[in-house]
């Protein structure tokens, strides 16, 4: 319990970035920190993945949000990522949380076919 409280107290506040480039830099910083903590996570949670596999999974996670151009959304995503990483390296997660993260495959957002897109536009007007 006490370690939990300590972790919550030392969590960073929800930072609001001044501009879009600042928010993007924040995300790159998070990405570097995530890559650096891969060996630590393997050791803490006794994982049997390849380092390169795990790095690819983290990268897929970041590429998923690569087309965000809204500063506030980027800040929100970065904050979630920072918190998750912090929890993982502070041993606030259990092994199954971490395994679930690395087992889950990210599928790219489904491209709507022409007909579906047309229907969507049609229903949006109603």
């Amino acid at each position, binding site marked *: 319990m006490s370690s939990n409280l300590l972790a919550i107290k030392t969590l960073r506040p929800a930072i609001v970035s001044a501009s879009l480039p600042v928010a*993007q*830099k924040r995300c*790159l*910083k998070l*990405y*570097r920190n995530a*890559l*650096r903590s891969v060996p630590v996570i393997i050791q803490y949670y006794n994982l049997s993945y390849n380092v390169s596999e795990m*790095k690819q999974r983290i*990268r897929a996670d*970041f*590429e998923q949000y690569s087309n965000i151009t809204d500063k506030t959304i980027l800040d929100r995503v970065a904050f979630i990522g920072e918190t998750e990483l912090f929890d993982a390296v502070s041993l606030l997660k259990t092994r199954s949380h971490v395994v679930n993260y690395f087992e889950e495959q990210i599928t790219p957002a489904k491209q709507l076919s022409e007909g579906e897109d047309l229907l969507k536009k049609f229903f949006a007007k109603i």
Partner: protein
Amino acid sequence: MLSRSFKSLVQIQRPVLMAGQSSMIRSFSSDHRLSEKEVTDRILEVISKYDKCAGKSVSPSDTFKELELDSLDSADILVAVEEEFGIEIPDEEVDRITSVKDTISYIRKTPTAK
């Protein structure tokens, strides 16, 4: 007379302890930074091992953009370089590094790189 003989005794004994080892001792005043050639070779090896650079010829004058690497790729490469040299590049420096040349010059001026 007595002091001279005592001195000679000490002088004879002292070098015996160090004999043959002088080449294994590194003086801390000497310049132990890595040579430019070694740094360049090791960095080029790290970069050419990266997936997206496989099959490309990487030269020290290339920027990451010329190698068709995006921001995540360059972060990947810098983390690999950090692991190779056993250092951690601070965030404000990472923003300034945009080419192979920048990486080499940063490692060259970092005394803890090994």
